[in-house]
């Protein structure tokens, strides 16, 4: 048992305790925590491709939304329970990620990034025109009001998202330490040289894009139950794509802790700004902070901390 796993276990235990008891009675805090945790998953998933492998995905919102829409389809078909929706949404988005991985055969760098943006818009158009999932007007999902032993259903959703976040972070941390992660790092630095160093670049890229897609899908799966009503404009909201990039960039893209720190800071700040100021202003802040960090602190918060407190790993 390493410190990481003890910490992860403690986080889940505390989360469970808060979710089943009434220590925090006001469910607003759970609504807010849910969003922040969802961003931890999204940012971590983005970073597997963007940070470790160096392929920028502008289409995170597309993956997130398809995760949500898969859940809606399952709900419409068989009223599937959440714990079935999550893995299936993950698999659908994982397959999409696999497809995106094959795109890397033809597209590198900037072209790949633009391609992902295009993919998200094509998916959005498909959903707008697909009446089964509500088309442009959207679809309702009835959320159970309570679930024992959690009480309020939102507490349960928040706890589920916490577990998903821990899974995502654990996956990222594993990659970072594995031979697989070192291979991705080499691909980020120089793909051709990596191939000549004996690294099966295509296979590694496919695994990474599939995993990244899977994690984005599971982040989106509980979304319909959380909001109760899904329309293309909310599921494909640009805010997801921007945050998925901004959070790792701000936290730092080289370590699993980067996206987590970025998501916690930026996600919490946005939740506070949403209530106290306006939702527009809070998005403006995200944009400004992103530009600021990209320009002045390309290594993110993790990089800054390393710089000022020694460079231990």
């Amino acid at each position, binding site marked *: 048992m390493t410190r990481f796993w003890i910490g992860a276990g403690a986080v889940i235990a505390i989360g469970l305790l808060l979710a089943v008891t009434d220590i925090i009675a006001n469910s607003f805090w759970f609504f807010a925590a849910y969003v922040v945790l969802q961003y931890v998953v999204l940012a971590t998933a983005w970073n597997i491709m963007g940070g470790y492998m160096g392929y920028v995905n502008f289409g995170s919102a597309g993956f997130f939304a398809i995760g949500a829409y898969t859940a809606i389809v399952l709900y419409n078909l068989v009223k599937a329970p959440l714990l079935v929706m999550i893995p299936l949404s993950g698999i659908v988005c994982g397959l999409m990620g696999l497809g995106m991985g094959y795109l890397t055969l033809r597209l590198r760098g900037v072209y790949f990034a633009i391609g992902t943006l295009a993919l998200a818009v094509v998916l959005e158009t498909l959903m707008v025109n697909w009446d089964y999932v509500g088309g442009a007007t959207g679809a309702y999902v009835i959320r159970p009001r309570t679930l024992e032993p959690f009480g309020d259903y939102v507490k349960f959703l928040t706890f589920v998202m916490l577990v998903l976040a821990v899974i995502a972070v654990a996956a990222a941390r594993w990659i970072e330490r594995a031979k697989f992660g*070192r291979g991705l*790092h080499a691909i980020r630095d120089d793909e051709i*040289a990596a191939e000549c160093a004996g690294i099966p670049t295509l296979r590694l890229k496919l695994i990474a894009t599939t995993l990244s897609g899977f994690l984005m899908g599971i982040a989106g799966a509980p979304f319909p139950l959380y909001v109760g009503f899904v329309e293309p404009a909310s599921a494909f909201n640009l805010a997801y794509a921007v945050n998925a990039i901004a959070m790792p960039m701000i936290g730092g893209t080289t370590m699993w802790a980067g996206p987590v720190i970025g998501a916690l800071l930026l996600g919490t700040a946005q939740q506070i700004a949403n209530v106290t100021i306006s939702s527009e202003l809070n998005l403006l802040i995200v944009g400004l902070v992103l530009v600021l960090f990209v320009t002045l602190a390309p290594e993110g918060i993790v990089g800054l901390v390393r710089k000022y407190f020694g460079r231990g790993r």
Partner: protein
Amino acid sequence: MTGETILAVEDLTMRFGGFVALDSVNAEVYEGERLGLIGPNGSGKTTMINCISGALGNYTGTVRFRGRDLGSLKPHRRTRLGIARSFQIPRPFRSQTVRENLAITIEYATGASGAERDDRAEEVLQSMGLGPRADAISAGLTQIEMRKLELARALAARPQLLISDEAMAGLSSNEVDELLEILFRLNESGVTIIMIEHIMRAVMRFSQRIVVLDAGKKIADGEPDAVVADPAVERAYLGD
């Protein structure tokens, strides 16, 4: 002095659109040999290397390594089989240290891990004289250090055949000698070497045999002295 055929290139042809970069080239390389591959700019040397190493997969003709047709095998599979190359313009993993550059190559190309991987990385570092720079980030290396890292990384893959693509361009005469010495030592340890080079002094000193390409065709193949005296080679370099 040299053994059986390690690499055979048969009717190798590579087209880019309408341009024929390699035109049915036939050549063999023998086990333990030091082969020089020369030719004017644009004669197809680097294209040939790219076909052998697999970077260009859509050639016609055959590349055989130890009798095995490499077909459309990907570069990383060829590296694992024992064909390693260095790049003309060094392509280190820029954000990683010199040691990490070697470790990752050893890990993937030879499958070694843990202490075995680290020992081998250390071994290559020492043999290339990169020991003092082992923990420097590779983006900050000097020209000669970059070239050494390029060769070191190829060595880390434990090649049976090493292809050195203009490792010496732009280096001082002392530095050229230093790299030559490294390559000689390698060859003595049993590695077959193909050297592509513009610096004739280095090629002549190093090669046991020289193959000359011109406009995608092989125009000469033989002992260095004979090749240089060949009127066809002279024409290729000086023009009519």
